[in-house]
């Protein structure tokens, strides 16, 4: 595996194809939890964690259970012919969403048990995350891009970082907008969208990035 390739995946996920500014994934929490800095940071941390975890687990599910290839557990365990392995790829969506939902529940339980203080700061965001398309999105993207295990992990982790970056920057600006004479009809969500648009314009500065 090539380090510079991983770096490219990371830079793309954070800057060039930022989940918010370019891929449009995870906008609900982006707009919902960006009113305060503390919650933005908390949410960001939770998303980074869950995204990395989800990338890994869904990758494993897909490659060991769903696809008809030698990596499939059916092949390994039952010594089936590759041709005869059931092609379960059509179950991808349903499998991923269930895995993610279970995962988030599980994480919530573990965090609650092991670190009540962490739970207090992150716990409230965890349920929100299940229905966040960024998590499912990164899982599907990993598969569509035919990434291997490490690449998927890197994309999951860095996409979470990109999301957090966007979220925290937005929170900073929104606190300021709260104390600005924004024209009435634009107050609230409209100006938040316009701000996101202008931020996306700034992020165009990273477009065409290539490491050479």
């Amino acid at each position, binding site marked *: 595996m090539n380090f510079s390739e991983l770096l490219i995946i990371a830079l793309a996920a954070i800057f060039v194809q930022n989940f918010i500014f370019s891929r449009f994934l995870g906008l609900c929490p982006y707009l919902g939890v960006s009113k305060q800095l503390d919650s933005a940071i908390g949410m960001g941390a939770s998303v980074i964690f869950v995204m990395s975890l989800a990338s890994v687990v869904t990758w494993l599910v897909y490659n060991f259970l769903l696809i008809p290839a030698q990596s499939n557990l059916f092949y390994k365990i039952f010594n089936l012919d590759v041709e005869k392995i059931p*092609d379960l790829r*059509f*179950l991808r969506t*349903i499998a991923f969403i*269930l895995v993610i939902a279970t995962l988030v529940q599980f994480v919530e339980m573990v965090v609650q048990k092991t670190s009540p203080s962490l739970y207090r700061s992150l716990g409230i965001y965890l349920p929100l995350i299940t229905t966040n398309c960024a998590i499912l999105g990164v899982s599907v993207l990993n598969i569509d891009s035919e990434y291997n295990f490490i690449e998927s992990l890197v994309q999951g982790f860095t996409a979470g970082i990109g999301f957090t970056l966007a979220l925290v920057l937005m929170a900073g600006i929104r606190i300021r907008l709260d104390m600005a004479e924004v024209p009435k009809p634009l107050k609230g969500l409209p100006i938040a969208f316009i701000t996101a648009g202008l931020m996306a314009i700034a992020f165009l500065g990273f*477009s*065409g990035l*290539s490491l050479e």
Partner: protein
Amino acid sequence: MRNIIKLSSILTLVTAIAALALAGVNTITKPLIEEQMRLAVHNALLEVLPEASGGVCVDVGEKKGELFEAYSSPDTTGLAGFAFKAYGKGYSSTIETMVGLDLNGNIKGIKILFQQETPGLGSKIEEIKYGKSKPWFQEQFKNKNAERVAVDKDDGEIKSITGATISSRAVTNSIRNGFKKIKPRLEKIIKGEQK
């Protein structure tokens, strides 16, 4: 405890029903989807290698679906040419191009299979000018030697798209380099055929 078991079994049941229903749908759509994919490739092949019309295309790639032989008759005799897929990193996507070649390595036609370049800029590699039926950028490649295609900015003959040199270069260079890579294999196949 009992409750948990009950809930889990309901959930499992629902999931199982769903999975079964989906399996049913899948058996209907799977052949359709596969046919669509095959058609996409096949149509592209026919477009870039009209000589092969009537014949079939046989996949000879090491990696599935990368390199094709084309025959002029249905019984796979009479090698008419080759086609291969070229991949080039453009401005914002990896551009995938099907390239048709005659036996001398001259391009018979190209077709962009996939690109996500900027609309209005890089995506002009697929632009069809008013009153024309084929994309002008791709038409330029006809009858050029695949080994020597280059854009005007690199002293070549392919007129690049204004403001989208990167995309233009990506297509052109991917064809040239792709051809260079498969050339030895093509020569081998041609030799084998002549024997």
